[in-house]
């Protein structure tokens, strides 16, 4: 019973992502797509600065000591959001979310299969390869 609540929490987190894409697609029509993406990261930075100042328990100084490729997450996140801001008004939210998720799932299986980016190795099993096929079928049907 208690766990159900956390599944709902996870469900809502996904709903938030869809809404985010849909809304920034609209904002992009007013201020420009790249600008819409910039707005998100800029205001998000303000919010997170406050959050880290008041609730942060980690250590930001490690930012300067970690390998430089650890710092590329922001650039990748930027590409993700900008792609959505351009794409959603053209093809809709549903297919965009499916395409994002399928790309994400297939790539993370490949990353884990080879143990890239310092991840723990996890071979692509029969079940996982079947899942990839199903996801591609889903993508084709929805397209």
């Amino acid at each position: 019973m208690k766990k159900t609540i956390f599944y709902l929490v996870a469900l809502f987190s996904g709903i938030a992502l869809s809404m985010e894409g849909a809304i920034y697609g609209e904002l992009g029509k007013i201020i420009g797509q790249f600008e819409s993406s910039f707005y998100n990261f800029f205001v998000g930075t303000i919010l997170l600065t406050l959050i880290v100042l008041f609730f942060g328990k980690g250590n930001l100084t490690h930012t300067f000591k970690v390998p430089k490729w650890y710092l590329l997450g922001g650039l990748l996140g930027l590409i993700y959001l900008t792609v959505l801001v351009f794409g959603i008004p053209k093809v809709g939210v549903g297919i965009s979310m499916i395409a994002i998720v399928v790309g994400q799932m297939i790539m993370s299986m490949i990353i884990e299969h080879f143990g890239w980016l310092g991840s723990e190795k996890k071979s692509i099993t029969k079940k996982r390869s079947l899942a990839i096929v199903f996801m591609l079928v889903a993508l084709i049907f929805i397209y």
Partner: protein
Amino acid sequence: MSIITVIITFLGGVTLSAQSSINGKLSNKLGTLETALVTFLTGTLFMALWLIFFGKGNLLAIAQAPTWQLLAVFLGVGYMFLTILAVPKIGVTATNLTAIVGQVVAGFIIDQFGLFGGEIVHFDSSRFIGLVFMLLALFLIFKDNNETLK
């Protein structure tokens, strides 16, 4: 034409998975909130550079944009907080897969009613079949993960 958009969006998903791996590494050193801050800060800086050289839109038009659109920033940050709540209780895989279900179903609902000012795309039989295959795939991944844990 729209097939290209879908392929580019697919590649956006590919970059997102690389981001999760990288941010996982970073948060081991920095902490979760700190990693989110570094991600947003570097994202802002990269995009600021891009806008200075290639920006064609009008950032100042933000003053004319409806407030509800500006609230979208809380959704991205909210996503992160909700995952931080759920992961310790149900695990990373269950959290991610459940979030994906929410993401996909919400996407279809937004399309069906043209919510937030977008175009209406009706939920038809081919979308239904696609959704079923998607859920089957997620179920397989969930089962596979449970097995490797045992």
